[in-house]
């Protein structure tokens, strides 16, 4: 049972406001170690510098989008096993299918509540303590 307090989570979104909002929601469910990146490229930098337990990434970003990031993560020797949750808008089923094929572990529809976020994380990583 992973402890929320020790999980290291990377939030990737090009919008600062969305990143902050996600951070606040993560903090509500007890996660304290939160890294941020504003696109896939920056996320890869972070992911290669330190071990992460979870990546939550938006899809639509300049430079490198969420799917490209997912593929880069899955192809990266150090980071390829890090669980990956894709943030998406409503009704984007096609994208979610693609993400599942590329190795995403779950998805999250914006906007989301703390409960949903927790539920999705637990589906991926097991019950949080």
């Amino acid at each position, binding site marked *: 049972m992973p402890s929320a307090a020790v999980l290291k989570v990377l939030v990737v979104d090009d919008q600062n*406001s969305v990143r902050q909002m996600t951070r606040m929601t993560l903090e509500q469910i007890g996660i304290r170690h939160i890294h941020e990146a504003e696109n896939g*490229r920056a996320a890869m930098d972070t992911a290669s510098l330190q071990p992460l337990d979870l990546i939550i990434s938006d899809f639509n970003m300049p430079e490198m989008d969420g799917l490209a990031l997912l593929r880069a993560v899955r192809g990266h020797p150090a980071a390829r096993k890090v669980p990956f949750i894709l943030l998406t*808008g409503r*009704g984007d089923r096609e994208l979610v299918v693609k993400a599942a094929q590329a190795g995403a572990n779950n998805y999250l529809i914006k906007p989301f509540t703390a409960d949903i976020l927790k539920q999705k994380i637990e589906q991926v990583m097991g019950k949080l303590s």
Partner: protein
Amino acid sequence: MSSLDQLKQTFFDECSEALQQIELGLTDIRDDAGSEDTINAVFRSVHSIKGGAGIFGFEDLVKFAHVFETVLDGMRSGTLAATPDIVDTLLAANDVLSDLVSMSRSGKAIPPDFGSESHAALEQILQANSNGEPADDDSPAPADFDGLDFVPVRVDNFESEDENTEREYKIVFRPKPDLLKNANEPLYILRELRKLGTLDLVVETDRLPPLAELEVDRPYLGWVGTLRTSSRREQIDEIFEFVIGDCELEITTLSAEPDFSTAAPASEIEVAPSPQPPAIALPPLAAAEAAPPLASAAPQAAPRLAATAAEPRPTASKPAAASATTTRVELEKIDRVVNMVGELVIAQAMLGQVVHSLPEDVSSRLLQVLEEVVHHTRELKDSVMSMRAQQVNAVFQRMPRLVRELATKTGKKVRLEMAGENTEVDRSIIERLADPLTHIIRNSIDHGIEAPADRIAAGKPEEGTIRLSAEHRGSRIVIEIRDDGAGINSERVLQKARERGLVSADATLNEDEINNLIFLPGFSTAEKISDISGRGVGMDVVRRNIQDVGGRISLKSERGRGMTIQLALPLTLAVMDGMVIRVASETYVMPMSAIVECLRPPASEIHNLIGTPGMLRLRGNLVPLVQLCELLDLSPPAVPSDERVVIITDAGEGSSFGIVVDELCGHQQVVVKSIEESYGSVPGIAGATILGNGRVAFILDVEKLSDLANSQNGSVGISRFANGDARAVGFVNGTHRVVPPQQAEAAF
């Protein structure tokens, strides 16, 4: 402010940036200057607004952005053509979106049918495209997509072994001369190697001879580095099979276990080339690509070039995302620093005075240190001012919408071109630029650009063009608004001016002088008052606005060809370089930017023409002189006339005049303090400053001084200088007030 409110602010700031992106992108697409990236960027921006709006609960915004985004998605995926009509609809939709954002920001209730027209137009595009099928009705999609095969990951199974374990090899590869002669190419070998996994090489350039000794067919470079791959050793050996005898080659196994620390550089190569590659340790790919083919002229000299040319990023067409290295700071905080720098400049000037009054043996050492301090203060000032600087884009970006709306209203066709949007200027100037620009552009569309039929009749393209540009010239920013309309109808202007008694009936004016009459207060030639250009509180207000910030406005018109208005504005209002001067017993500061040269001419070079305060013969030209002590009503100086100094100043538009003063006291940075609050606007005085001795000195407004001089000489408000340039019109009766500095000190 709660943290949620703060986040909302951040979101709205992001929206402003996104809206601007959308506007620019759509304009590019309309002008056929867009690429696939452009439409993607536009889509992304709308999508971001929608996403954020959803999170912060702005449902109207979400709804509208959703249809907008759906149309863009169609364009992006190629199912929808970007016809001019559709792009126009999208531009209009962006205006609605922008209004929705500002209404959401201000917390105003959004009228229920707001933007419904635009919404319907977007829906219609979608419906037409889907051949009558109902368009996507933003009904909420299911919150879950069932049946998707997601992999749950348990945190405790991270350590599981993988049979395809990667290994890391150390590679040393130094081609010998025969390698190239045997028709092998190192570049191809490195490329093959790269296909196996993650290659991290550093090029060795130490054997590279001077260019003159370089032999074209000899390889000088070598490569050392690591290859991380899951391929077998044999596969690596295969690559070097044909060159094995022609090179120094070393392949050694380093590690079998991937670990995070060594992975870092590898990933940089894959996804993030460092922005500034070091000079010698080249980014491996760049170095490899740079190793040129056999036939090129100076094959092995290329790596240094490669070192400066960073590897192109995948989305090179888009300007590098600045957000990665920027931070938002409250303006107040920066203003506080600006004020502190101002105080520092004053304190430093005072220190300078004290040091000068000390005995020389002490002061000389202190002066050295002080000089250093002065140097640093200047740099500090420059960097703080650059922080306050903003791109003129902040104002320019409002103009496309204005042009669009006005064009629709007047039934004219107008295109707006913009250049130099990235030019930076202090934000206090930016703030005061919006109104004048709006006014000028309104005028241009209302009175300048002709109706399409008239344009065709005049042999011009149906669509009129307004070009808005900005650039730095010296310590000023010059903004130019140029249109290709009808220009100013000078007969009509002159007639109106005479009717209104602005010029006497017998005055002979040249075309430029007539055109400048439009800057006079209350002047308007609009044959019908339209709701666009207002009621003749026109160009004089514009001119005053510009002059209030120490700028000047000039105008050129060519009948039937169009007109150009130029605004020249100072880059900053807070701290400037000044020349401290003395006239009679008073001390003044003159902006260095206005000074062309200072000289002490012999009396024989000064010609006293009747009705003028003198002309100076300078390198064959006659330059009009202004006696500062007379102009400012000071007691006549005790200094003999041939010891007085003439400061030649640039009055803009190539004309110059000389200001006669008693003494130059030195060059100094001064902090500009406004006197307007206490004394109103005083012609000829741009502000005040505190000198090193703690006294207040006025800062002279050079351009207005020349106006003052003209009006005092009894000219009718228009005078011509020796070189034939018409001076701007508009100074009616020299009703200036000059307050002695002693009295003004109370104001600080």
